[in-house]
């Protein structure tokens, strides 16, 4: 099923309706923000201080308590969503699934009138969909995502983050969709993505072959990204060591995200993408 298939789009529409319930809002942008500013939805009171807009002083409160308080409103702004989709050869088995996740997130973003930009990640950054907004951009977005090829060698998140930093200084929500099994590590790349106060969310997609080693005996291991190979004998002991190493690697990702305040969600290809997106929305993953 391609990403422009009507059936698939219907599934995205259902997701969007669900997202509306969760996100709410209908003015400048449909996305709700956690920031306070000039909106129409009352959020809180704050003590007046010099420089505040005196138009927002609540005179009724002043008349009653002789205290200057200003009304705060939820800031309603058009956010920018940056989707960074891992398109390296290591994602071959998970590529379609990653694209489905990206399509769902992009669909919701465009329908909530947010700006959306999509990039492919590998050994360098590759624009897949230029920044734009509006519901009329849904089909072009899905087409470009559908047509995005796998490219490059080893995924280098640092290089890609550096390139992304150079292109976009306007802060927004950066959602990285990758398996995060990166030989060069992920810490530097994630930290760079945070430099311009972007909200970074990591969506780790793995499949069973990444997590477990079911084959034993004499094999030639071949790296899908670099083509490097090594002849080894895998006994249950080695298989267990591998599974342990992957678990430790994923624990490292979890700790890094927790330390840096990044959102993280790990999923495997056997879980439906709707379920993942719904879960993500409910956990507030898209609220900036």
């Amino acid at each position, binding site marked *: 099923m391609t990403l422009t298939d009507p059936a698939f789009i219907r599934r995205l529409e259902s997701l969007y309706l669900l997202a509306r319930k969760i996100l709410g809002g209908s003015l400048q942008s449909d996305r709700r923000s956690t920031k306070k500013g000039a909106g129409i939805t009352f959020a809180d009171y704050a003590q007046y201080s010099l420089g505040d807009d005196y138009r927002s002083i609540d005179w009724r409160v002043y008349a009653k308590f002789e205290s200057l308080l200003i009304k705060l409103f939820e800031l309603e702004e058009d956010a920018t969503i940056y989707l960074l989709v891992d398109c390296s050869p*290591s994602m071959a*088995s998970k590529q379609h699934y990653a694209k489905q996740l990206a399509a769902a997130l992009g669909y919701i973003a465009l329908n909530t009138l947010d700006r959306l930009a999509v990039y492919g990640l590998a050994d360098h950054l590759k624009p897949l969909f230029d920044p734009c907004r509006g519901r009329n951009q849904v089909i072009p977005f899905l087409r470009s995502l559908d047509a995005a090829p796998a490219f490059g060698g080893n995924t280098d998140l640092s290089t890609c983050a550096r390139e992304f930093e150079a292109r976009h200084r306007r802060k927004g929500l950066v959602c990285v969709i990758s*398996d995060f*099994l990166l*030989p060069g590590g992920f810490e530097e790349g994630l930290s760079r993505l945070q430099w311009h106060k972007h909200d970074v969310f990591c969506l780790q997609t793995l499949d069973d*072959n*990444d997590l477990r080693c*079911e*084959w*034993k*005996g*004499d*094999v*030639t*291991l*071949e*790296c*899908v*990204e*670099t083509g*490097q*190979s*090594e*002849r*080894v*004998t895998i*006994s249950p002991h*080695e298989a267990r*060591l*591998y599974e342990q*190493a*992957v678990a430790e*690697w994923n624990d490292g990702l979890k700790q890094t995200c927790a330390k840096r305040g990044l959102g993280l969600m790990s999923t495997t290809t056997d879980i439906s993408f709707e379920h993942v997106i719904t879960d993500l929305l409910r956990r507030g993953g898209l609220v900036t």
Partner: protein
Amino acid sequence: MSFLAPAFLWTFVALAPLAAIYFLKVRPRKKPVTAFFLWQKIFSEKKASALFKRLRDVFSLLLMAAAFAAIALALAEPDLAGDERKDLLIVVDHSASMSAKDGTTTRLEKAKKRARDLIAGMNGTQRAAVASFAEVTRMLAHPTRHRKALLEAVDGIQPTELPSRVESLRALQPGDEWMKDTRVLLITDGCLDEPDRLPGVEILRLDDGAKNAGIARADLRSVPGGPQRLGLFLLPVSSFPAPVKTDITLTHVDSNTLVKLIPIELKPGENPAVTLTLDDAPTGRWKATLGLEDALEADNTAFLHVPPRQPVPVGVVADDPFFFQNAVSAFERSDQLLALAPDAKSARLMLSKSKVPTDVSAIVFHPAGESTAWAKVGDEIGTPVPKVFIKDHALLRYLDAETMSFAGARQITAPAGSVVLVADESGPPLIYLTRIGAQTVCVVNLDPLAAQFYLSAWFPVLIHNAAAHLTHREDLPPATLATGSSARVPGRADETPYGPILTSGFHETGEWTLAASLVSPEESLLRNETLKESLKPIASGEAPSYWLLVLAILVLAGESILYHRRKVG
């Protein structure tokens, strides 16, 4: 060591292609992985075992070669025992002594295990048969190569309370020409009745330190001196190395009364007989039990039966009945065989002179007049010279007829069909038996007065023998029969013996009770040092080929576990 199938040693040639296969470069399957850097990390930590990795193929080849060599040797069937590999006839002794326990295992179980080992040691070309041996020899499995059938036959051998009888082994005809390619193996403890008369069998002995004491002979019977007097005879034997003290309890089973407790010290081997007279002892079923815990329980109890006193009512028809009546009274006082009948109607046997009574068996002396029991009574024979025709006849037992005086004997002719036991040289019968309808008449052709027969020692003997024979009581069974034996039931005209009796205890045969016990010194002593184990080599237990195959399987399994060669799952 020799090989039964050395041609299979050529299979060692196949080791060369095996080695060639091992040194061929095997290209393992390619497996694309996404986290190659993680695998590199894992294997970089295992560099220390690189030497083993290099030699791995050589070790694997050596193991495979060892497994292959074991299989090749197994095919060649190495024979370590030097056995001639003739067909086997395995005879397992299951007589009473084989039930002796040494610890928790009986000798029979050990014998069966030995038989199973022999069957396991057979090669593919050998045949074997299985037989059991005690008082008779039974074929349980005929010659076959089918091991399961042979093992089932061995498993089916049950313990018995029977003594062994070497004579029965002759039924197998060991040593005959047609059995020259068959080895007859007797698995036994050596407790045989006639070990020196064993036919050509090889002995596989079972030795243990079992200690036993038992009653090897027993008897209980009426003795003169009183109407209720019984004499007891017991012969205990012991295989304990030192004297042991114990008691023999004598119980009257019918009334469940403990009659006597006899303390006894049993010395090793055969002991002096225990004899005892019991006054006022009832007839019926008795039991003598040796109160000792030993290896064999079956011989600790002797079952004894004293038949109730039922004298035969005897009538006397003679003009001088005094001597006849006294003879009958004498037997009434001693063994209660005879008693004077109150009247002629109740008599079951008649003692008569000159006349033949009707409807009842009789002993008739001095034939005279006309009768169907003889013909043509003529003159007296001058000097009769008796000649015995049937010496072993029950009627002539303990009787020296040739020295008897037959004075007054007449020239008579015995009717057709008569059995003449003694006759005069000139022909006339002197003692004969004849049948008249249902009655049997014993005619004694002499004048008791003229021959002074009443005063002769042969008079009571002849009366007793003739009375016992005519009433079918000449062979009273003993107080206890040996297990495995048969006995004629007294009082029955049918001469077919009852038995063989296979178990000890009391056996009811209708009108008579028979007691049977394991009374055999050979079985009770449990030891016979004279019988020697056969020295001919014989294969026993699993063959070397079997263990070589087991070794091969273990090596192959080890190789597979250690190296997982060429298996990618």
